[in-house]
Structures are given as C-alpha cells and as structure tokens.
C-alpha cells in the first residue's frame, strides 16, 4: 500500500536544507505567536499564508504545519506561567497549570504540557498517515450528493459546539454562508451582491477574508486593551520533563486524550480548543479523584495539552482528502493549498503522493523537533509575554497588509482584509464566535455547488437525490450526534 517511490521522493523533498530551515522557523514562529496572549493558531497560519505564495508546496506546508503545531503548544506556556492562555486551545490548561506554577512546581507543569503536546502530536500524525489514504480512496467516489452530506454535517456540528449558544452559532454559520453567495452565480451568471462593481464578480476572496477575520479582528481587540503589566517569577521557567514512570502512570489519560483530540480534529469544523476541553472533562469524569482537578495536578495539564495537539493530525484528514477543513486553522491551511494551485480532495493523493508523504513525515518531524525547540523557547518566554500590545498590533497589521497585497496586487483584496477584520471585531464584541463564521465561509461554496449539482443529477426526483449510500451514512451519523445526548439521558432514567 505504501508507494515507496513517492516515499523516497518525499524524504528527498524534506531533506532540502531550505525546507528543514522553514520547518524550524515554523516551529519558532508558532511558539512565539502561541506564547503571545491572544494570537492563536488560525492567526499564526493566516499571517504566514500569503508569504508561502512564493514557495514550493512542500516547504510551504511544512512551514505552516510547524506554525500550527507549535502555536497550539506555545499557548500553554503563557497559560501556565501567567494564567493567561496564549491561545483558545490552552484555556483548559490554565486551571491546573497555573495553580501548579504558583505552588512552585512551574518547571514540572511546563514539562507535562510539553510532553503531552508532543505525544498527542505524534499520535495524530500516525493516525493521519493511516486514515487519510483510506478516506481518500473512499472520497474518490464522492460526488455532489456525498459532498452535500458532508458539508451539512460539518456545518451542523460546528454551530452546535462553537460558542456558548446554539442560536449564536447558527447565526454566525449562516452569516458565513451568506457571504459566500456574493459574486456571480456560477451556474447562470446572475450577479449577486456585486453592487455594480466587477471586483465582486468572483465573490469575496478566501485568503484576505480569513486573514482579516482572524488576524485583523484580533489586533483590533488587542488594541483596546491597555498595556497590562505582567508580573511573574521568571526564575521558575525551568522545565522539568516527567519521567517515564510518571508517564506510564498516566497512560490512560494520555491515550484517551490522544484519541479524543484526533477524533475531534477529524470532525469537520472542530478545533484544538474543543478537543482540549473535551479531553479535560473526560479525564476528570473518569478520574477516581475528580475533585482534585483544578487544584494543580499533572493530569489536568496532560489531558488538554495532549488532546489539543492531537487535533492537528486529525484536522488534516478531512482537509486533505475532502477539501473540507477539520478546524478553523485547517480552513486557513486549505487556503495555502489553493494558493499553490492544488485542489485538496481525493485526487491530491494520486496526483501528489510525495507531497502527502512529506506532510505526514513532516508533521512527525515537527513534533520531535518541537521537544528541543520548546525546551529552549521556554527560557525566552518571559521576554515574549512582556511584549507590549503597542508592538504586537502594528506588526501584525503590517504583516497582513503586505502579505495580502503582494499576492494579489489588488487593493480590493486589502479592502476585503480590512472589511473582514472589522466584521470579525464587531461580531466578537457582540459576544459571537468567529469560528462558525469562518467554517461557514469555507463550506459555503462547497455546499452550494454540491446542492445545485445534486439537484441537476436528481432531475426532480427526491429518491434520486438521496440515492447515495455514503451520503445516507453521513446523514445517519449526523442524526446520531444530535440525538446521542437526549437518547442516553432518556435511557439512564
């Protein structure tokens, strides 16, 4: 089953000095952005995305995956050291991590988060390499009706979990969908929301929109915050890696969190934050001493940190095989593939096997290297956490502008970047989440095309519309995820 020629060529591509350098650069950048409070993985990838335009596919993917993985891990450092999560993915780590830090066990806590992150990342990289080719074989049979089912699934799941309320999630998902209807109707050429301006003919461009939504909106929110002085004892930033014995003792938590993270990652739309919360609550629920969670115990760090890094490999599964992003960060990653002229989907495996192998092996390498780079980076974390907002905000804005303009040579796209940034800012100020908005925006075109093509195929017949075993399986799985909670609740009574 393993294509050895492609494997060798993938190793050759990865062995390129520039690629290896970018891999390290990606990890370092990811760590920096992850440590900086507020800037999470989607922003980190979004900022680097336009610059990958000038690279080959393998180096660009390696760079972005390095950023993705390291940003998720980096968030835990500030979560532990100052109690401010560097990223959403690290929110679950704050409770036990920061408590451990305050009781003088900071080095241990940092060691647990690093080890957990690496194990989760490695586990999901292996899962990706095993599952993705199988799913790609299946996905080759995906037609419009199957894609319709999978995008409905993704949308429903993301609005259900993202944010605090179902109606808010629905509204944001719908807003994302609505924005993708802008531009020329691809089937009959009707102009939709073009405002008489031909720049809108192809709709809102994906990459500027996502970079604006994540990065610009974040710096706008960050700009409001007064420079807060962060005080902590930098001397305690000395990592103490846990011994093998300790890890063996925690093997159940590690294993379960790895699986939870990977599965949450695979489900379209779910990201690292959800994976971390889920793993934390599972670990607590199954623990013999659940009351100890939140008081500063290692399990409370290992569970979320293992799971959030495990979402990376999981999220890549649907992204690469179906072109349906597994997480908001993967949605941005999808943009990177499109920039390269690659269409994510089942064909990617047969057309670019070496790229696929390079991604699998690259992700593996990233997690191993992250151990060493992470150990060094923690020493500099103190300086990073103290970087004032007045430096971060202009830097991120400038990077977004330069990146977007250099790819498209278009001021319209810079306008979209700003517009999406303001939209994201307003939406977040009103207490809504931008995650379902971004997923809706990415899934919108897939959904519309799939729906209208399915209608063409069905030619007026409802039976023909649902005459798809794969699609029906997906709808059944969707029904199960919705009804699971209520059903089990009823049976327990």
């Amino acid at each position, binding site marked *: 089953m393993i294509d050895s020629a492609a494997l060798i060529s993938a190793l050759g591509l990865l062995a390129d000095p520039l690629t290896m350098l970018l891999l390290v650069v990606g990890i370092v950048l990811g760590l920096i952005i992850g440590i900086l409070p507020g800037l999470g993985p989607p922003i980190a990838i979004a900022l680097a995305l336009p610059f990958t335009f000038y690279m080959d596919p393998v180096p660009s993917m390696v760079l972005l995956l390095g950023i993705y993985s390291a940003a998720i891990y980096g968030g835990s450092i500030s979560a532990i050291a100052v109690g401010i999560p560097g990223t959403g993915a690290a929110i679950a780590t704050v409770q036990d991590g920061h408590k451990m830090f305050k009781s003088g066990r900071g080095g241990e806590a940092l060691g647990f988060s690093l080890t957990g992150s690496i194990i989760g990342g490695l586990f999901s990289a292996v899962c990706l390499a095993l599952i993705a080719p199988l799913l790609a074989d299946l996905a080759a049979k995906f037609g419009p009706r199957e894609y319709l089912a999978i995008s409905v699934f993704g949308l429903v799941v993301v609005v259900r979990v993202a944010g605090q309320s179902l109606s808010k999630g629905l509204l944001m998902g719908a807003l994302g969908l609505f924005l993708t209807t802008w531009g020329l109707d691809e089937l009959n050429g009707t102009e939709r929301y073009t405002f008489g301006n031909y720049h809108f003919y192809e709709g809102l461009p994906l990459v500027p929109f996502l970079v604006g939504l994540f990065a610009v909106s974040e710096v706008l929110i960050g700009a409001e915050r007064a420079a807060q002085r962060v005080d902590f004892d930098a001397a305690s930033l000395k990592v103490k890696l846990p011994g093998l014995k300790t890890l063996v003792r925690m093997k159940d938590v590690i294993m379960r969190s790895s699986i939870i993270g990977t599965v949450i990652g695979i489900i379209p739309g779910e990201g690292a934050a959800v994976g971390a919360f889920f793993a934390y609550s599972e670990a607590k629920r199954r623990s013999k001493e659940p009351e100890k969670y939140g008081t500063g115990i290692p399990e409370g760090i290992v569970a979320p940190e293992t799971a959030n890094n495990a979402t990376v490999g999981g999220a890549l599964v649907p992204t690469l095989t179906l072109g349906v992003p597994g997480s908001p960060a993967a949605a941005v990653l999808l943009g990177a593939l499109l920039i390269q002229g690659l269409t994510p989907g089942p064909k990617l495996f047969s057309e670019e096997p070496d790229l696929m192998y390079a991604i699998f092996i690259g992700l593996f390498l990233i997690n191993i290297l992250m151990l060493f780079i992470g150990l060094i980076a923690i020493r500099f974390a103190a300086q990073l956490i103290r970087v004032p907002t007045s430096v971060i905000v202009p830097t991120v804005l400038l990077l977004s502008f330069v990146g977007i303009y250099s790819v498209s*040579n278009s001021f319209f796209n810079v306008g979209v970047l700003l517009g999406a940034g303001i939209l994201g800012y307003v939406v977040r100020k009103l207490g809504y989440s931008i995650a379902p908005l971004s997923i809706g925006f990415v899934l919108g075109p897939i959904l519309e095309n799939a729906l209208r093509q399915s209608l063409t195929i069905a030619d007026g017949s409802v039976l023909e519309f649902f005459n798809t075993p794969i699609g029906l399986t997906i709808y059944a799985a969707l029904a199960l995820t919705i009804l699971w909670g209520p059903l089990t609740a009823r049976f327990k009574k």
Partner: protein
Amino acid sequence: MKLMKTVVAGFAALGLSAGAALAEWPEKPINVVVSFKAGGNADITARIAAETFSKELGVPVNVVNKPGGAHIPAVMSVKEAPADGYTIFQFAPPSFMVVPLTRAVPYSPMDDFVPLWAGAFATNALYVRADSPYTTFEEFLEGAKANKLTIGVNNLGAPPNLSAVQLASEFGLEFKTLALKTVPASIAGLVGGQVDVAVGQIATINAFEGEIRPLIILDNNRVPAMEKHLPGVRTVGEAFEGKQAGAWVRGGWAVKAGTPQEIIDKLVAASAAVGTDEFIAGLPAGIDWKFVQGPEAVGKELQVGIDLYSPILDGLGLLHK
C-alpha cells in the same frame, strides 16, 4: 527574492508617467498582466514568453498576476495604465471572448486594445471513462439519444461547455450539465463516476492516461496538435460531413489602443522569438502553440471567436446585447 522584485516593480510602476521618451523605448521594465493566478498554464506561458521578450528587448519583463473578478480587474488595470508599451495584457478566452460576450464590461477587446501576437492554442475533445460501454462516438450517440446523460464541463459559458452545447444542438441530444469548475476536476468527476461523459481539452488525456477514453475531437479542421495528443481520433468534421464543431481557445499579448505605432512595431517584431521552433520545443507538454503575428492577423482570429461563440451563447440566453 520574487517578493522584492514585485515590490520594486510596483514602486517603479507607481513612479512612471505617460510621457516616456519614444525613441529609447524600452528603457525600463515592462509588466505583463496575467488574469490567472500563478502556477497555472496561463501563468507558465506568460513567464516563458516574458523571458524571451526580455532577451529580445533588453529590459526585464515581469509577470504580474491579477486573478479574480471574472478577469475584469486585470483587463482594467491595463486599460487604465498609460498607453506607453510598458504594460501588456495577456489575453485568454475568458478575458477577451466569453466575459465581454456575456456581460456588460467596461472595456472592448477589439476597440480598447491592439493585439500583438497569439500563441497558446487548445481545442476540446469528448471523453468517457476507460470502462465505459461506449467505445465509439456512434455508440455514444445511440446511448445519448436513449438516455439523458450527465455531461461534465468546467464552467458554464466556457469553451468546453460551449463545445458541449454545440454538440447537443448539431446531433439533437439533451444532457444534464454539471459544471465542475476546472477541466481536471470535470475529468476527475468522470473517472469518479459523477458524470457519464466530459469535455476536456485534447491535451487533457496526458494527465489521465488509461483512465479515460477519447471519443471524438470537438472541432472540424485537423491540426498537428490533435495527432500529437489523440492519434487516430477523428474530428466531428471528419466523421460527419456538414456537422459544425469548433472551439476558440487562444492566448497571446495585447497593448492598450493608442500605444505609439513605433512601440507596437517593436513589440510585434520581438514576438517573432516566441514563434520559433526552438521556443515551442521549450514549452511544457500540456501547452499547444499556433503562432500568429501582428495586430491584423490576431484581430481576425478574435473575430473568428466572436462569430463562433455569439450564436451559441445567444442560444443559451447568455449573450449580452
């Protein structure tokens, strides 16, 4: 590096004014605007041609990609630039044919531009899966008359779709049309079983060898490229005398109307270098070339396209009047 170049070129473009001295043209870098994103066939051809022109003219020739907006922003950026020969447009079927024919655009390819040369050439072919029950075009015709088959094309209104429409009207067939966005995607849809037949270009076969079977070339007149990609496959005109088939898939360069004649002459003269056998041999395998030089000859080709597609688009109700 490339980023630097783009940035520098951008500043250079901002700084220039219309009144460049004619005698020394060209005395600074020339920009070629491509309405497709980097990496595709259109971009590759532009870069190879730019390199050749750079050697001929002695100044850097830079490719600027301006994708999006139904190709209109790219065209407009050239129309709004000074007519001084430093901004060239690389035209293609959407920018110079399908889009102006189907909607109100703020430019006219024939009036606002002077075409210099045309090179890239393609024509369409009808494909089925390798294991399809239709082994010949005649069997396909019978099958298509008995059942309404699903046909895969890239975009509605694009040349493959127009070839399909022409085929349907010439032979009295009816299809369910699925637009799958790109030619490779529509062929992938064919291989994956989402459509029964698909229209691709004659060179498309190279990427799907063994997975698909060509039935017929959707054109009338035979050209060497057909024999190169699809040896032994008939054209519609050869198989059925009197039946019409054709496609207009051409690419080349144009400058803004009003560009001084001396500059046009210099550019046309330099274009001879992209018509040599040596240049053609250096092109990627998937790109076919039919070199035509000079405003008059290329203008005639554009008119052929307009005459071919206007009635078909009109029949679809897509023609902009």
